[in-house]
């Protein structure tokens, strides 16, 4: 085994995605540790200072990279292992952290285990999210929030025939943000409003697994609770300031708490025998949200008249969701596997809200709205995997899906009898697809895969859903001790002949090479190209003097993304490690020189032309030096550059930036 695996790992050791410059992946010395009681203890800490210097659009930098200045515990690890597997309270503790101290992405992973008695896993993560108020939303939807995720899982009697699970997860998001509100007139402008994001989600889980007579039975009960108590206010007087829109928002307040829960059940039964296997699952989740909204606005309307508006909404929405799966596997011979899977999903969303509005002294009354959206899906698939010989195998499958979507929309005006109206829409569609593939291993280090899938849907839900689609793909891979080469291709085409004549073509090519001729030198390079073109007829209203229905224009989008990576690692006399890396992602668009081709005089066509393609270059070279000071100490330093350049900008606005980031740190291991 080791002769095969070692070369794979030796090569795999050179494969590295374009990293962020820190923490340093290198370690000090070989496996180490100190004895303590009956345990072996290993620890490492990397502490250092990060810096950044940004030119250009700081908002886009924070959206894409977001590393700042300051001292950090860039990474740490702690492991404690019982040498005989009979520790008093635990046999293993591992704790790994990264980014603690103020990095935008931080994590801590803890694992504690006592053989046969319990296993506890904890993860805590933090992400600082920044949305710079992109032009796609008028530049007004800024967000500077932090999301914290934590998961705790405790398994009791993990090696027994009966196991118990307890779990808790928490997800919070908070921080300042801007949103927008439109008041007084439906065609008026929207104004930025301040929101203080406060969202929280908690989940509790309890479950058990039992192994009996070759069957594994799992049951889990979970309760989760969500609340969003984000308030919104306008900060000062905001005016549109245009001749056609005199709206002024002088005061604004909105409170819209949402509290909900989604308790659920999961049951699973699976077994695997010599000639057959079974896997059955049933889940039921009852989602429910209760909400209220109170909004008041005071100002001047679009036409210059004083205006005020009050809106009060209350109600609830529920969503029972039932899903079942039954998977049957057959192994008639050692070379043949047949798996048939049937899934049923029934999802019904029911909602009711009471909407009351006062607009500049006029009571617009109260309307009670009802909404229902039902989604029922039944699928059946059969997959066959035949290993004809050790060097060749075939696989294929037939997949069928039947889906029904029902929508009921209604409202009631309590002040008027017999005012109820209901509109019922329903659409049913079926999908059938077939898949065939072959994998060949002409000699041990070389493998080839090739597959083709074709599918047809009769009534897709939307104009861009899969209709007549096909995918074709292949991969070739060569792996020996010091070299790994691979190449792949995949295309995916979809076409909807009706109405909008939507078509989409994506083609992806990739090539990778890794070479590790010496233990002090390795190189890794990759190249990918992703092509996408789509076309669809549109219908919308537009016009210079008067807005009229336009139905002759097409939405076209063309993207050609080239992504390349290069990483080189040198080790100098086992004393120093130097890593040089470069990654570039470049969308060349469709090759045009300007966003709107010269000679375009139609303003509508010019607008559509300007968003048909979005050439952009994002690149990031990095260099990192790690020097071993002593058997337990390393000194590290690194530099990473980020460059973001839009060729055309989004709707005329450029968000380009360049950033110099780096760090220096000391890694102490013992």
């Amino acid at each position, binding site marked *: *085994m080791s002769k095969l695996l*070692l070369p794979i790992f030796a090569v795999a050791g050179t494969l590295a995605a374009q990293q962020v410059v820190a923490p340093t992946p290198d370690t000090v010395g070989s496996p180490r540790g100190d004895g303590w009681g009956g345990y072996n203890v290993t620890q490492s800490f990397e502490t250092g200072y990060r810096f950044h210097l940004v030119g250009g659009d700081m908002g886009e930098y924070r959206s894409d990279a977001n590393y700042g200045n300051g001292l950090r515990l860039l990474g740490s690890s702690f492991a404690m292992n019982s040498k005989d597997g009979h520790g008093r309270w635990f046999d293993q503790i591992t704790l790994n952290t990264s980014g603690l101290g103020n990095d935008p992405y931080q994590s801590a992973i803890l694992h504690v285990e006592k053989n046969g008695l319990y296993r506890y896993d904890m993860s805590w993560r933090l992400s600082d999210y920044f949305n710079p108020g992109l032009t796609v939303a008028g530049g007004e939807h800024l967000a500077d929030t932090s999301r914290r995720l934590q998961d705790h899982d405790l398994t009791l009697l993990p090696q027994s025939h009966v196991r118990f699970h307890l779990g808790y997860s928490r997800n919070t998001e908070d921080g300042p943000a801007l949103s927008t509100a439109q008041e007084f007139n439906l065609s008026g402008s929207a104004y930025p409003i301040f929101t203080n994001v406060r969202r929280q989600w908690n989940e509790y889980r309890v479950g058990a697994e039992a192994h009996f007579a070759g069957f594994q039975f799992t049951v889990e009960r979970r309760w989760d609770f969500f609340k969003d108590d984000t308030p919104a206010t306008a900060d000062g007087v905001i005016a549109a300031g245009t001749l056609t829109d005199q709206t002024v928002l002088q005061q604004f307040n909105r409170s819209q708490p949402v509290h909900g829960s989604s308790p659920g059940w999961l049951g699973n039964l699976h077994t695997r025998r010599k000639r057959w296997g079974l896997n059955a699952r049933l889940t039921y989740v009852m989602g429910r949200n209760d909400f209220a909204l109170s909004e008041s606005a005071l100002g001047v309307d679009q036409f210059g008249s004083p205006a005020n508006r009050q809106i009060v909404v209350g109600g609830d929405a529920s969503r029972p969701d039932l899903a079942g799966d039954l998977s049957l596997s057959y192994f008639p011979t050692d070379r043949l596997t047949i798996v048939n899977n049937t899934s049923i999903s029934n999802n019904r969303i029911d909602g009711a809200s009471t909407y009351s509005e006062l607009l500049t002294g006029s009571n617009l009354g109260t309307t009670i709205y009802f909404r229902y959206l039902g989604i029922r899906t039944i699928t059946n698939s059969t997959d066959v995997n035949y290993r004809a010989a050790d060097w060749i195998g075939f696989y294929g499958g037939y997949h069928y*899906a039947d889906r029904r979507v029902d929508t009921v929309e209604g409202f009631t005006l309590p002040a008027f009898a017999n005012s109820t109206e209901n509109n019922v829409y329903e659409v049913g569609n079926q999908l059938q697809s077939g898949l065939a593939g072959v994998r060949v291993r002409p000699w041990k280090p070389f493998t080839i895969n090739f597959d083709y899938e074709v599918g047809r849907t009769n009534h897709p839900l939307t104009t861009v859903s899969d209709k007549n689609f096909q995918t074709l793909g292949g991969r070739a891979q060569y792996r020996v001790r010091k070299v790994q080469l691979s190449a792949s291709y995949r295309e995916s085409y979809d076409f909807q002949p009706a109405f909008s004549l939507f078509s989409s073509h994506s083609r992806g090519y990739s090539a990778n090479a890794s070479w590790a001729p010496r233990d002090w030198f390795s190189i890794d390079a990759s190249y990918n190209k992703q092509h996408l073109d789509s076309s669809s007829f549109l219908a919308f209203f537009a016009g*210079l003097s008067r807005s009229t229905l336009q139905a002759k224009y097409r939405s076209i989008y063309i993207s050609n993304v080239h992504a390349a990576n290069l990483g080189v690692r040198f080790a100098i006399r086992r004393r120093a490690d130097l890593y040089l890396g470069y990654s570039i992602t470049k969308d060349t668009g469709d090759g045009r020189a300007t966003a709107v081709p010269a000679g375009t005089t139609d303003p509508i066509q010019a607008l559509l032309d300007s968003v048909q393609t979005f050439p952009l270059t994002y690149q990031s070279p990095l260099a990192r030096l790690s020097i071993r000071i002593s058997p337990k100490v390393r000194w590290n330093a690194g530099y990473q550059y980020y460059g973001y350049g839009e060729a055309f900008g989004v709707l005329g606005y450029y968000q380009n930036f360049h950033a110099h980031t780096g760090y220096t740190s000391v890694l102490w291991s013992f």
Partner: protein
Amino acid sequence: MVRAAIAAALLLPFPLVVAVAQGQPPPAAPPSGYVGSNACKTCHADVWLNFYKNPHFKSVASGKEPPERTGCEGCHGPGQAHIAAGGGKATIPRAFSLLSPKQALEACLTCHERNFDKANIQRSEHTQHDVACTSCHSIHHAATPQRLLAKKQNELCYSCHSGIRGQFEMPSKHRVNEGFMQCSDCHNPHGSFAATWGMGQRSHLVEQALDNESPCLKCHVDKRGPFVYEHPSVAVEGCPMCHNPHGSMNAKLLKRPVVFTLCLECHNAGGSGTRNLGVDLQSARHNLLDPKFQKCTTCHVRIHGSNADQYFLR
């Protein structure tokens, strides 16, 4: 006192259950050919040296497992013939480098089939493509103490899924390279139940949230709803209708650089949709040449679903 009695009543059965659950049938006589791990470490001291840190060491420490599930021979099979021959790979009953992917899978499933997260491994795309356990896991030279992965998780996945690697290097992406997320936050590499929020039903190893939902909702819980006014395309087809989940050259993982083209491609009066012959056409009041109508989500702020407004205005 009452509380203590209730607590005792609740806790008392636990030791009983523990006793029953841990109760194993008395070990049968050792099958022939098993020599025990002590014999193996004579020659393979380098492997044995740190094996106490390996999760598989539990089988040795427990002392209750039968020989065919204990230590080296638990995975590699009885070692008597190997010792008698003085070594050699061919004499190891289960030398993983000589096993076919299916044989390697079967060997690992001997113990790991009981894990719920591997219940779908027979129909997983990895199994279909002969990606066996040893393609990703390194039992004796793992780079990660947990899961025994041969490489840091994202780099391991990128070694085959290089197209995905390119997407995570785009300016707008989920923070996988930065270490905040892992591929397994959304995918189960051992196979998953078919996704039920979409039509195609191909699983793509997607790990579902709340047992039956798009994995996006594990973190983006504010988009889960239920809402009184659902955006049907979101509820029915899922997030990938508008977003590229791994990464995008466009802001917010969007499939298009601007929102209005994304919206208009569906809201164009074509297709079947929930309106029978088409989803809502854009309002006649919206002159697309007016810049404020080119930024749909400036007004339609609750585009993922709303409780207060059928047009997602609040």
